[in-house]
Each structure stands twice: as C-alpha cells, then as structure tokens.
C-alpha cells in the first residue's frame, strides 16, 4: 500500500521548485521527514527553513504534535510557501 501526497508550491516557492504542484507516491508508513527529504533531493528545497512555511492538511507544521515525524496518509496535501505576514 502506497500513500499519495499532493505537494503545492505557492508564490515564491513555485519559482524555487520550478513547478506549481506535484504528487509524491511514498511507501506506506512514511513520515513527513521522508517526504521533505525527497523534496530536497528532487527540488533542491531543504526543509525545515525559517523562510519556508510548511502546512500539512491545513495546519502549520508546528501545530502537529510530532512535526516532521508526523505520519503521512493517502490523500494528504502539503503546502510550501513563504511565511505569511499580513495583507
């Protein structure tokens, strides 16, 4: 059983990634750290980075109790974007 995670690169992160979004197929049991390692390898974006905000399924990564050890599930969405600071 594999898990499919959609990664969306927003605003300036899209420029860094060179794409707007993509789907990563990960082995069952993968955690967020496994995904960020792949993003670093394939897109050259190393995480965590103070200038990159990580949002998993609508919640900032710091809001997940296990942070990078958080387990991934099929259908998850990960957003990567510059930190937000008001309009």
């Amino acid at each position, binding site marked *: 059983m594999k898990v499919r995670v959609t990664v969306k690169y*927003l605003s300036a992160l*899209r420029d860094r990634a060179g794409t707007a979004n993509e789907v990563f197929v990960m082995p069952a049991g993968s955690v967020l750290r496994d995904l960020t390692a792949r993003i670093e390898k394939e897109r050259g974006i190393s995480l965590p980075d103070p200038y990159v*905000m990580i949002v998993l399924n*609508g919640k*900032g990564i710091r809001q997940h109790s296990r942070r990078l050890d958080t387990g991934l599930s099929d259908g998850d969405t990960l957003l990567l974007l510059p*930190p*937000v600071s008001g*309009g």
Partner: protein
Amino acid sequence: MKEFKGAYMGKILRVDLTKKASRTEDLKGEDLKLLLGGRGLGAKIYYDEIGPDVDPFDERNKVIFMTGPLTGVRLPSTTKFQLATKSPETGRYLCSNCGGDFGPQLKRAGYDGLIVEGSSDDWTSIIIKDGDVSFIDASSWKGFNSDITLQRLKDSIGDARAGCMSIGPAAERLVRISFINVDNRAFGRGGAGGVLGAKRLKGIAVKGSGRVPVADPERVNQIWKEAVKDLRTSRANHTKYGTPQYIEAINEFGCMPTRNFQTTFFERIEGVDAHTMKKRYYVKNFHCFNCPVGCGMVCEVKEGPFAGARARTEYETVALLGPNCGVDDFGAIVAGNQLCDEMGIDTMSGGNLVGLTMELFERGLITKEHTDGIEAKFGSGEAMVGLLRLIAERRGIGDLLAEGARGVMKKHPEWAPYIMAVKGLPYAAYDPRGFYGNALTYGTSSRGACHNVGGWTIRAELQSGDYDRWALEGKGKLVKQIQDNRAYVDSLGICTVVRGSMDFRDHPASDVMEAVTGYGFTPDLMNIGTRIYNLERLILSREGVKRKDDQLPPRTVNEKVPSGPSKGKFLTREMYNLMLDEYYEERGWDSDGVPKEETVKRLKLHTLLS
C-alpha cells in the same frame, strides 16, 4: 518636551477652514510618554474634541493627522502617519494609517500633526510651506480625479517632492466609502474622503525645508544599514510579488472571500494570482518614502477589454474585486482598481458592496432596473467595474450603495443575511470561518471589520504552533496581543511590513527608540499599545458601542462553508460569544464590552483624559 532629544518637532498645526486661519500648538511631553504619537495621540485629540453628537459631515467634525516619532527619520519605511475623524461609513470613531511623502514632509515643515477643522464656503486647498500656510481657490478643480488633483497640488506648491493629499469626485458627492489619496497611497477605509468633501477641501500640499532630528545620528545610521540588509532577505517576497503573493495561500487555506463570502475557496484562482500578475500585468515596483522593499506592484493591462488600465494592486483589492465578485480576470481587477483610485473610493468596501449587489441580483431581489441595465452576475468583470462606477457617481442602486453598508442595512434590513460588515465597515479579505481568531478580529476592531486594527491572526494561528485555527480557546488573548502590538506600531510612524527588521515586536528592543528619541520608551511599548486600544474603546463606548455591536453578520455564524479546504467548518453565535467573553476578560472590560474602572486606572487613562 525636554526629555526628548529627537524625533518630535514639538508642534501641531491647526487649520480652520471657516475662518481661513491657522495657528500652532505645543505638544505635551506627558501625552507622548503615554501615547507615543500617531494613532495614540490622534485618539486622544479625538476624545477631547469630537463628541458623540457630532455628525461625520457636520462642520464640527475634524480631521486629525498625526505623525509618529519615527515618521521622516532616516530609517527604512518611516513613511506612515495616522488619521482620526468621525467616519461617514460607520458614524463612529475612525483611525486610519497611510504612507506616502506627506507625513515626512509635514515633520520637515516643523509639525508633528495637522488638525483640519471648520468648513469652507467654496472649494479650497491648503498649501503649507514650512511656517507659511495659505489657501488657494480650488473651485475649478471640482470633479477632478484624485491623481490629477495631486498633480495640481504639486504645481501649486511649486515642488514635485511635496507631500500631497487629495479627494476625488466621489468624496465631493459625499460617497461614504470615499478615500483620501496621499501621494498615491491612501487613507482607504472608513470614508474619510467624504469628511474633506463636506468641508469643501479638495487637497493639501506640504513641503518642509527642515530635518527631523535624532538623538544619536551615528547609531541611527548603523540601525539603518542593518535593517536594510535584513529586509533584502526577510522581505524579498514582498519586493518580488507584493501583497498579492498571499492570493494563492489564502485560497489554499480556505479563507478566500468568494462570491460575497458565500464560500471560502475560489476555483479559478490562477486568473488572479501573483504569478499571473507578474507574468502578464506587472510594470514596476512602487516604493513609499525611504522604503527599500517597495511592495507596491504597478500593473498595466496590455490587451483585452480593459487594455490600457493601470493601477497598483494589493492583496485586499485583488481578493475583494476578484474572487469576492467571482471575477477571475486580473485585467478587470486592474480596471476596477484604477476606477476606484481615480474616483476616490475604497476598493475594499467597494468590492464588498459589488459582491453584495451581485448576490442580490442573482437572488432576484434587485433587477437590471436598479443596476442601470448592468447584468450584475458573479464572474463578470464588466459588471464589477460598472457597479463601482455607479457607486462613485451615485447612479441607480449606486446611490444607495454610496451610503455604505450601514446605509444599505438601514434601508433594507431584510438584506441583513447578505451584508458582510461589522459596525458598518465591510469585511476585509479573509473569511473568519477559516481562522476563528479572525472572527474576533472583525468583531472587536476599533473601526469595524478591519484586519489591521483588529489584529491579523493568520500567522499566529497557522505558524506559531500555539493555536489550532479552528479552536476557540486562547483566541481572546491572542487577538488582544496582536491588536495592542499594532496600536503601538501605528503610533511609531513606520510600516508594519518592515517593523521586524528594527525589532518592533511583542517584546520590542529598546535600541531604536533610544537612538531616535533619546528617551527610554521600551519596554513599555506594548503597554502603550494596550492603553491606546482602551482609549479607543472608551471613545466607542461613549458613541454607544456595546457587546451587541461586536457581533458578526449572520452568514458567518449561521452557514457552514460549502466548499474548498475549509468545507464543513462553521461558527455559531454561541461559539463566537465564548471567544468574546475570553477577550473581554483579557482586556479588563465588563460583560458588555466597556472598560472597567480599574482597567482605566491601571492604564493611567483617568489622568490622561481628565
């Protein structure tokens, strides 16, 4: 004033339009120590001089412009100054923050503030050259767009570097969502332009030949260099994409106002996001005074039905003229933005009122007869621009919309389910069902549903790790803290985008304030923010504001989000009131939202206001 060795000029200029006369007054050091300047001092003058019985268009209403200690100092983005007046849009206290050259030039001319009072018989403009104040006949300028008026003011004062502010034709017609154009930035919200319109004041130009002194020039110079270096990295995205960089993110977070806040996710966001803007419309950056960031994105439409339109688009404008009207054409947004700028109306209230009109039209509550023949359907860029024009010109239903959300509600209380406003001020471009803290932001902001004065919570709710965005607990404390922070920053005279580079945070470092003023303001800055927020609430209480006025419109507390990432999320009135209870408690206000006596005393407001 001797405790200050820099930053303040020590004087306020008071101009009486009825008598065509002016005089100066000395600032009081004690007031500055407690309120800093800017928004704080503006609120105190408002408290002392504009009573609850004064109508916004009454000649007894005044417009108070106040700079802060950092305005005009050689540090990044020391461009900001504040306005306080009775708002035509809400009928209550209004504070507003703006950039441009005007604030710095006012200080160079020797004044920390300018109070405009009375009312002129004929259209006039004020020209301030250092200590010289004169009035010019502006009767031939009537009907001029706000930007043309700025040019006339520059010609009249004879200096292209002068700071200038103007109103457009909408304010002349007393449209209640009219703005004041300040060097192509704006006092946007609350309709302050209409107050100048009622006074028959078309504009003000100011040019000073002095300098703003600082206590320790060498240290200030060093701080400047460090801050500029920091901003190159920390604000690089603002330089690249401006505030429209948030369009995609806010949509993905599920709090984008869509079709009059019916849902919180816009399906065709690619048409209006920052990449589309940059690729197809961007012309150049716009910088406020002394700003290395330059977050203003000047855009131009090169082809299609809106070809030739040109404007500087901000996140709030794009969201409210775009998704909130169902519009996915960035070109239409630029055209709507330009029309608002020229006619002189607030794009945010404008976008809300157009969204409302489109919903009423689609529900069959109004017809083409009301809209001057416009097929006012969501998604039509032409209709969005056309309806904005109706408002600015007070034609058809535009005459009613020009009375603002409060006026519409008064005439048609049965439309309440579709009117998205608090205290008469329409929502900013975030749907609170996506971030519950934002609900309190809108409910308790000192000027109605504003994300700036009310406290922008999204960063903390998403990034800090301390909150769950869909939880109620802790939001009262959070919102209070962000509001107080913003109140002191608004009183400094710098832009909120750059403040982090100079350590103006919740626990501000003492360095900058000491180097500039020679006085040890810190660590008291957050307390000053708390004091200002309570002073504003005292004003609002005097104007009749109570718990019932801190409530949210029905849609936010009755309807579940129907689509997008926040699908199924909802708030109820009971949930909201639990947060409100916590907020009042944190503030030291009673259960009706009035500051308790002990709170007033603790903050020394009783001595300040006696």
